Every structure is written in C-alpha cells, then in structure tokens.
C-alpha cells in the first residue's frame, strides 16, 4: 500500500483528494492544511509522495517545496504540485521549480490515483 501526503489549505479539495486516493487506489493518505504542518508531517510520516497545493496563505506551495528540499529527511520525496492555474506561463514556472509534476485542479476523483501512479511509475 502506497503512502501519500496531501498538503492543501482548502478543506474541500483535501477531503476529495484523500477520498479519491483511499477509495479508488486503496492508498494510505495523510493530510496537512498548511505548508508548515506539511513539513512536519512529511518528516515524521515519510510518505512516498506529496501532493502540494500552490496557493496557500503563509508558506505557499513553492516555498514549502523549497523547505522540503532543504531537509535531508524529506528531500528525496517526490512532490507533485496541485494548481488551478491554467496559464502556460504559470505552469512552466512551477515545473521549473524541480517538482515531479504539475497536476491541474479540478481533477477527476476517479482517475487522480492513476495519474499519480503513472507519474511515479507505480503501475
């Protein structure tokens, strides 16, 4: 069973994504509602992957990603950004951060886990 951490300040998105990964794929999911909480949970929980929202108050997604990279305990964990931004310039900028992938919101709860698994080679 794969273990995934979802970091998103929006509770509706967080719950739908968790439901999707748990119900469709049977993965173990942990959630965090802020960048700071996500950093702590990533270090202790050691997920195999992180879904990270871009726009969050305080520490946003890119800043959280940079902190994850700085910590040897979390630097190895693949991160996929989740964003509702669809402009090509935004997506190119996010991809340039060094994340594994940039996923679009809204996502399809039926296929989100397939998308994640495909990116991470879990199929």
């Amino acid at each position: 069973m794969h273990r995934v951490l979802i970091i998103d300040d929006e509770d509706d998105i967080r719950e739908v994504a968790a439901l999707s990964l748990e119900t469709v794929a049977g993965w173990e999911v942990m959630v965090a509602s802020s960048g700071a909480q996500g950093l702590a949970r990533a270090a202790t929980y050691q997920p195999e992957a992180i879904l990270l929202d871009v726009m969050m108050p305080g520490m946003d997604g890119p800043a959280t990603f940079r902190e994850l990279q700085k910590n040897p305990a979390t630097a190895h964990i693949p991160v996929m950004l989740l964003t509702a931004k669809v402009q090509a310039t935004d997506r190119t900028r996010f991809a340039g951060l060094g994340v594994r992938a940039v996923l679009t919101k809204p996502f399809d709860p039926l296929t989100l886990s397939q998308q994640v698994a495909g990116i991470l080679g879990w199929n």
Partner: protein
Amino acid sequence: MSEANESLLANAMDRLWVKFLPQMEERVAKLEKAAESLMSGALSEEDQRRASAEAHKLAGVLGTFGLQQGTKLAREAEEVYAGTLDRSPAVSERLTQIAEQLRGMIAGRK
C-alpha cells in the same frame, strides 16, 4: 475500478458535496457582493483581490464535483478580478451574471 467501488466513491462524493455546499454558497455570495460593489463603484482593491481568490477556489473545486462549466465560469471571474479591472457597466454586469449562473449550477447539482 469495480462498479461497487465506483458507486462507493460516488456516494462519498455526494456526502462531501453536502458537507461543503454552505462553503461554496458562501464563496458565490462573496462574488455576488463583489459584483454589486463594482456596479456601485465601491469595490476596493482589497475586495477585488479577495473576489479573485474566491473565484480561484471555486474554479479549483467545482469541476471535481462534476461542474466543469462552473469551473470555466469561475475561472473567467478570477481572470477579470485578477487583472487591471475594467470598471465599465458591461464588466460588472458580466460578473453579476457569472455569480448568478454559479449559484444556479450549485443549487442544481443533484
């Protein structure tokens, strides 16, 4: 995915929809208020920034619940509020119309 699991997911999504419905209605109410303020010339830059953020959140979530057209409309509102706002009557009327359409779509989701 088995039909049983698919049905399980659909039922759970319906429960989440009910749970988050008040939150989505509140976001639409904020868009309605912003459009009214724009119409009356009372929309501040901070109100504009907040309206853009609310529209962004709606754009990100509505399609997840099957309301792809809602995402499209919310995205349109987000882009209008995020840019240099044209304060003409035509723009405020369009933003009012978007908020009304979003309210109708949300109310009509089964």
